């Protein structure tokens, strides 16, 4: 029984039978990954993204990297050969805005500055959305905190290494980030009230002041530490170490350029507001997320060198999305902004290739420009473009095979590679289904029988009553904090 089966069945049974099934499903240790096989993908239409399309081309994968790509590639004898039969190969999709693999809620919404929270601390490698997004060609995702706070939690870039433990998910060497949020969500426009206490800020003015206030503190805090470190290095004795502030540490990293700012935003005014604040405190905003009115201030974004990560065609779900247009990505691209299209949603992530294709219709981007929106550009935005985002020698073998041109609604992912390993294979997935069904039925039967037996033994006089089941917790959750 593979690991996925265990996870999935455990969850299902928990739902169906509402009993603890832990004795059936003792956690299995994740197997140490074997060395990735040497693989040759041949006879493929290769969408390199960096240097055009290679018809009938080949890609040699060695040690998890792309060893060679071209029209004719010589492979060692022991290479495993995959004949693509003319199918399309593109770089793995990089999703610059995701909330998959987060255990529990994505918002620490109780405070205005929640920089203490970190998505990297709560990665759940068994979240089925990892597998589903892999099946949609996604290989890398930027796992963001929610948008309930002007300054939200810390964020992490992961590879969708399905089957590996949480410690293996983070993208090695990728700079960590922090989520900021502007507009309706941090001021709780759409989900405040209804018996909840108002929380500062409640206006866009207050959002600005919250960020300025936090960075004022961070700057003073940094000065204290800089002074301490300087004097300590100079050999000064009896120094008092400044008190550590977990809330401000990540902001100091932002000031030092060691942590990227990914800011949720919608309206043109708040976009420019954040750029002013960033200038005042001397930090860079790495990406603007959603940025649905980015097209109105595209020149300003280009001048500030800030990346824009947006939706394909979402609009009108709230007031600040009322002027959203599907031409946003193309317009910003034309004005020189590095643009990506993201999902913000586990399901949307499964067809980001299709979402990118819409920019050909809305704004007239070329085939390659459209592909870049979900490959190279998000990789640039996350600072990992030396490793992923194109099909070039030396890059990670994160690849997707589609049966048609991926910029078509008829294209279906056949295989997804990460680090040269096939982590999704459609034929294998289809082939495994009958056995999974059988296993599921057998487990349900077994559990039913055990329940029946338990009841019988409970009925015996003199037996002690089964333990009271723990009362369900009334988890406080915040809705609407994601978009």
């Amino acid at each position, binding site marked *: 029984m593979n690991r996925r089966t265990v996870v999935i069945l455990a969850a299902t049974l928990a739902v169906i039978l509402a009993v603890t099934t832990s004795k059936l499903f003792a956690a299995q240790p994740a197997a140490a990954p074997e060395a990735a096989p040497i693989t040759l993908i041949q006879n493929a239409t290769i969408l390199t993204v960096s240097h055009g399309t290679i018809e009938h081309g080949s890609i040699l994968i060695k040690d998890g990297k792309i060893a060679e790509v071209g029209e004719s590639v010589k492979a060692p004898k022991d290479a495993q050969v995959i004949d693509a039969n003319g199918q399309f190969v593109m770089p793995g999709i990089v999703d610059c805005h995701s909330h998959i693999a987060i255990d529990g809620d994505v918002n620490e919404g109780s405070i205005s500055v929640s920089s203490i929270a970190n998505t990297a601390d709560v990665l759940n490698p068994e979240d089925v959305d990892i597998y589903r997004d892999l099946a949609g060609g996604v290989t890398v995702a930027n796992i963001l905190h929610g948008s309930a706070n002007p300054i939200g939690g810390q964020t992490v870039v992961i590879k969708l290494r399905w089957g590996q433990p949480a410690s293996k998910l983070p993208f090695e060497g990728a700079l960590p980030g922090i989520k900021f949020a502007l507009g*309706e969500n941090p001021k709780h426009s759409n989900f405040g009230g209804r018996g909840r206490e108002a929380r500062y800020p409640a206006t866009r003015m207050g959002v600005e002041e919250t960020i300025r206030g936090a960075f004022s503190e961070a700057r003073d805090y940094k000065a204290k530490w800089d002074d301490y470190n300087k004097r300590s290095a100079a050999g000064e004795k009896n120094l008092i170490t400044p008190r550590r502030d977990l809330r401000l540490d990540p902001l100091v990293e932002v000031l030092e350029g060691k942590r990227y700012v990914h800011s949720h935003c919608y309206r043109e005014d708040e976009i420019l507001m954040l750029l002013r604040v960033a200038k005042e405190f001397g930090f860079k905003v790495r990406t603007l997320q959603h940025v649905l009115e980015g097209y109105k*201030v595209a*020149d300003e974004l280009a001048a500030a060198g800030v990346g824009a990560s947006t939706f394909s*065609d979402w609009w009108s779900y709230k007031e600040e999305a*009322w002027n959203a*247009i599907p031409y946003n990505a193309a*317009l910003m691209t034309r004005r020189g902004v590095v643009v990506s299209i993201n999902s913000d949603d586990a399901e949307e992530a499964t067809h980001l290739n299709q979402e990118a*294709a819409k920019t050909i*219709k809305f704004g007239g981007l070329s085939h390659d420009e459209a592909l870049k929106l979900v490959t190279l550009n998000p990789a640039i935005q996350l600072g990992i473009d030396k490793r992923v985002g194109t099909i070039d020698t030396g890059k990670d073998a994160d690849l997707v095979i589609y049966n048609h041109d991926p*910029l078509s609604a008829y294209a279906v992912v056949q295989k997804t590679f990460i680090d040269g390993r096939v982590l999704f294979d459609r034929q294998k997935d289809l082939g495994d289904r009958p056995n999974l069904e059988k296993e599921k039925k057998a487990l349900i039967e077994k559990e039913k029988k055990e329940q029946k037996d338990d009841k019988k033994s409970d009925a015996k006089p003199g037996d002690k009553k089964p333990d009271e089941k723990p009362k369900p917790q009334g988890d406080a959750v915040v809705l609407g904090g994601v978009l």
Partner: protein
Amino acid sequence: MKFNLLSRVAMTTAVATLAFSGAAFAQQEAPTTFAITHAKIFTLAGAPVDDGVLVIKDGKISAVGTNVDVPAGAQVIDGKGLQVYPGLFDPVTQIGLSEISAVSATVDTTETGMINPDVVAADAVLPSSDHIPVTRAAGITEVLAVPASGGFDSRGNSNLLGGQASAIHLAGWTINDMLIKKSVAMVIDWPTIDTESFDFTTFSRKQKPYSEAKQEYDKQVDELSDWLDNARHYAVAWGHGGPAEYQRDLKLEALVPVIRGELPVLVFASRAREIRAAVEFCDKQKIKMILAGGAESYKVKDLLRSKNIPVILQPTLTEPLDEDDPYDRSLSTAAELADAHVKFAFGSFDNSFARRLGQQAANAVAHGLAYDEALKAVTIYPAQIFGLSDQLGTLENGKIANIIVTNGDPLELTTDVRYLFIKGQLMSTRNKHQELYEKYLNRPKAK
């Protein structure tokens, strides 16, 4: 903030109105006869016609074929290299009832209370809604505006009896221009057995035992049953004498066409358990059922086929219900229904994403549905399901001329709609999004 909002709404409405009135002034002198020539015509009532001619006269299709004369005075559209299809039909939207989902002042989708059979979508459809030209540009020429049908942000509101859905053209100065049929279905949101609920006053999840949840569910089904029984009694009283004989009740009156089998019920249900219960209920009540949503309709396909119950399928681009569902569960349901000969249509169930209707259908093709079936499931099948196929859904003589002329497959992501006719009028495909695009495309370079 309020003033800001108002002025923003006012501004965008003004832009849309200008675009619209531009087309309409032309309308006064516009020809009523059109001929699309040299196009490939997909009538969906037979094989495609290569190098064909389609003639529109007085709002209707008057000729389709190869040996068709272009009438004198007709405005001719050279369709060389283009393709002609019936306009797409989206059978579940909130178009005209909702502008900005999160701004309640702009949302009229769902009434308060549980029993609202007497409310009718057409009474609140806003003809100048910005959603209409945007949706039209995607090749959608007619929709159902469906009360109590959810949408992107429905805030958990639901009705047991949600009101009457209206079929509308996506063009017109007033609802009278737009109306295809005022009442095409009665919305029922089938109750579910929920052991977990969300309490908005405390913002927390609440759990309850199954027995309690089941009791609440049974109570709701009984309530539904009582309303229909009362409607039957009411219909009898109504048939026996004037208003003096009975007290008029608008809710019961609205249910009379349902119990008479004249108005189908559009039942929203996802799980197989609820679908089965709804089918059994409608069978017993002898009312005509159309299933909406149907996430697990594949589990009850034989039942649906045997009872002739059509399905308006939830968007194919929807996450599977359960963790252990195959990853492509929602994508392959359409093909399974087609194989089982269950009649179905695709629906967007939304306003913002209505323009993804073609994409939804194409994704089903990618997962096993025959292409022709997909095309029919966004044109003639929804028309058949709601009893409108004598007027819409195919390109045949005498049908209302709701037609699109495209540069390719209308389900594909990159295809453009070049010409669009509604009720035989050549309509603009311009919209708010295009206006904003052009405005900011022409913004002088910032200093």
